[in-house]
């Protein structure tokens, strides 16, 4: 059952006002306690189901219960924001800038624009970004023009800022309504390197996905599948994680914890969710006397999927310094090949760092195009912050 609170469209907020979801206090204390118990070898209380009885779900199953269909809620929020902007008599700027956290599997703004058949400005090919002279960017035309990702318009190289300069100049003089997207790390860099914040208006971004917003998103991605009657239960407590209490609030701590772990970013949360899914091991009968019908809007449970605690990836301390330079460069650019990485980094053995990061689960390699793995983003962000790197600002 969805509450009106869940379905409400949340307005986009100015960048800098992101409300970082925090871990529930009880879960923080319990996880510390678990670490102490592990250290001194104390066996924990009996879980609802033992880890030996569970196995990883197949990728096909993951795709059916947590498919990458995009975030319907985010699309609605963008729709609402753009409508308000276009209708507002106070809106002086023809440019609307949205900042997104990095590591999207599919660019939200581009998907949104394609679904509404808006014009999308072609980005220059990466190999052309170091070439000069740069031609002026043409923004003429009718209707809304969408520029999905500013990070595709530059390379962090002394000759790699010409195209973004040219685009910013064009945006500063255009009268055509333009919706511009930028990842939060690139925005911070561009504000410094080319003073992009002087050309573009105050950026906005979506509000952090809290437990209720995540619940709605996870039900949405499960409903896209054929299997729409599944009960998702936490393996330690056995609780139905999508259940609501009488006030319409999420019952347990799992989704609050997921919101904190994923920094309130829906695409990160969905990957953590997928990674945590388990099913009862083949041939292992599991009698569940405490099973209740799911409360996620379906009438009867046909199947139970279990959720285990997700373990964050870690980086070995001895290689961290150079590896973090690679991760930082990838966050600034979104995606880069290994050759492009060597352009934007100081002299170092890039390939060794890339291999190490891939092995540790921090990088995706899509046919030679490297990007920071969405699921590893919270861990990567923490490492970068701890090492003093210039951070993004949400």
């Amino acid at each position, binding site marked *: 059952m969805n509450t009106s609170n869940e379905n409400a469209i949340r307005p986009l907020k100015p960048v800098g006002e992101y409300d970082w979801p925090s871990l529930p206090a009880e879960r923080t204390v319990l996880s510390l306690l678990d670490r102490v118990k592990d250290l001194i070898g104390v066996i924990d209380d009996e879980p609802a189901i033992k880890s030996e009885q569970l196995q990883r779900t197949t990728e096909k199953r993951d795709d059916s219960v947590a498919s990458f269909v995009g975030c319907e809620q985010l699309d609605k929020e963008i729709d609402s924001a753009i409508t308000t902007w276009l209708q507002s008599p106070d809106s002086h700027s023809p440019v609307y800038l949205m900042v997104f956290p990095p590591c999207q599997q599919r660019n939200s703004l581009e998907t949104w624009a394609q679904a509404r058949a808006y014009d999308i400005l072609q980005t220059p090919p990466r190999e052309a970004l170091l070439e000069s002279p740069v031609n002026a960017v043409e923004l003429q035309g009718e209707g809304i023009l969408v520029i999905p990702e500013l990070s595709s318009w530059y390379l962090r*190289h*002394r000759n790699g800022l010409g195209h973004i300069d040219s685009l910013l100049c064009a945006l500063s003089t255009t009268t055509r309504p333009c919706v511009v997207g930028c990842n939060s790390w690139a925005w911070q860099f561009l*504000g410094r390197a080319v003073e992009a914040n002087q050309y573009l208006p105050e950026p906005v971004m979506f509000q952090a996905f809290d437990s209720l917003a995540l619940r709605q998103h996870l039900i949405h991605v499960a409903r896209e599948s054929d299997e729409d009657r599944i009960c998702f239960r936490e393996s330690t407590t056995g609780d139905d994680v999508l259940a609501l209490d009488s006030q319409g609030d999420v019952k347990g701590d799992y989704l609050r914890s997921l919101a904190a772990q994923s920094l309130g970013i829906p695409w990160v949360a969905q990957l953590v969710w997928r990674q945590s899914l388990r099913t009862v091991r083949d041939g292992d009968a599991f009698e569940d006397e405490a099973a209740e019908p799911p409360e996620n809007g379906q009438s009867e449970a046909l199947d139970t999927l279990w959720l285990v605690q997700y373990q964050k990836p870690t980086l070995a301390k001895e290689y961290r310094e150079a590896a973090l330079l690679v991760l930082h460069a990838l966050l600034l650019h979104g995606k880069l090949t290994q050759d492009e990485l060597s352009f934007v980094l100081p*002299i170092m053995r890039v390939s060794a760092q890339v291999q190490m990061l891939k092995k540790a689960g921090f990088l995706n390699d899509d046919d030679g195009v490297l990007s920071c793995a969405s699921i590893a983003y919270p861990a990567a962000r923490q490492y970068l912050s701890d090492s003093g*790197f*210039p951070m993004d600002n949400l």
Partner: protein
Amino acid sequence: MESTTDKFEPSQLFNDLQDINFLQIGLILVGVWAGIFLARRVLPFAAERVPSQLRLYFLGAVPIIRLLLMALGVLLIVPILFNINFQNFLVIAGGASVAIGFAFKDYVSSLIAGVVAIFEKPYRPGDWVKINGDYGEVQHVGLRAMRLVTPGDDMVTLPNLHLWTKNVSNSNDGTQTLMCIAHFYLQSDHDSVQISEVLNNVAMTSAYLHYSRPVKVIVNATAWATHYQLKAYPFELRDQFDFITDLTIRGKAAIAELGVSEASVAFDQSSELAAYR
């Protein structure tokens, strides 16, 4: 009525041997030593593992904890050994003054400078300082001396006494960053505005750049070259040499790309070059 001479009769300075609890003294010494040992091991260990913003606080706490523990130890031991009253205080102070005046003047001066260094903070562990021609990262601030490690990995021990007489140049003064300068000497027949813009871009696109600090290009015309100083800040103190190397390599490549030649210096001009640096 007591005579006036009785008033100034010195009383017993040391407590009787049988009244001195040597076990207690031993325990205090061991306790203080253990506390100092722990602070010196645990805090630097923790400093390497906490977020870099907290590193200097952890390192800076070591000398303060050591001083407090030593003062506590002295305060606890002195009443056990000495019979403290006004007359005895004068005797001890007089004896100590003579000893300090003749034998331990420099040593005590260093100790006092060590205490001053803890509170005035001209240098703290983790700072990059230049004292008496030696530049390096402060590893340890003791009561008598401080130790710094130079970029050439030499360990230099400097008595705190230098604090009274020498200039102490602290590059970061307890912050996480410090200014780095890359120097370029170019032959004079070029467009200085273009070179300044290119060098500015070089700094702006460095992987080590601290975003919230300024980048400056300073140009000087000298008799034999145009001297460019590219000034910027890295986000981490320890990256300073990597940052300067990165700026220098990419700066030279950018200048070469523009077809501008670097100035070369004949041997007999080297002293002039040194003066500019």
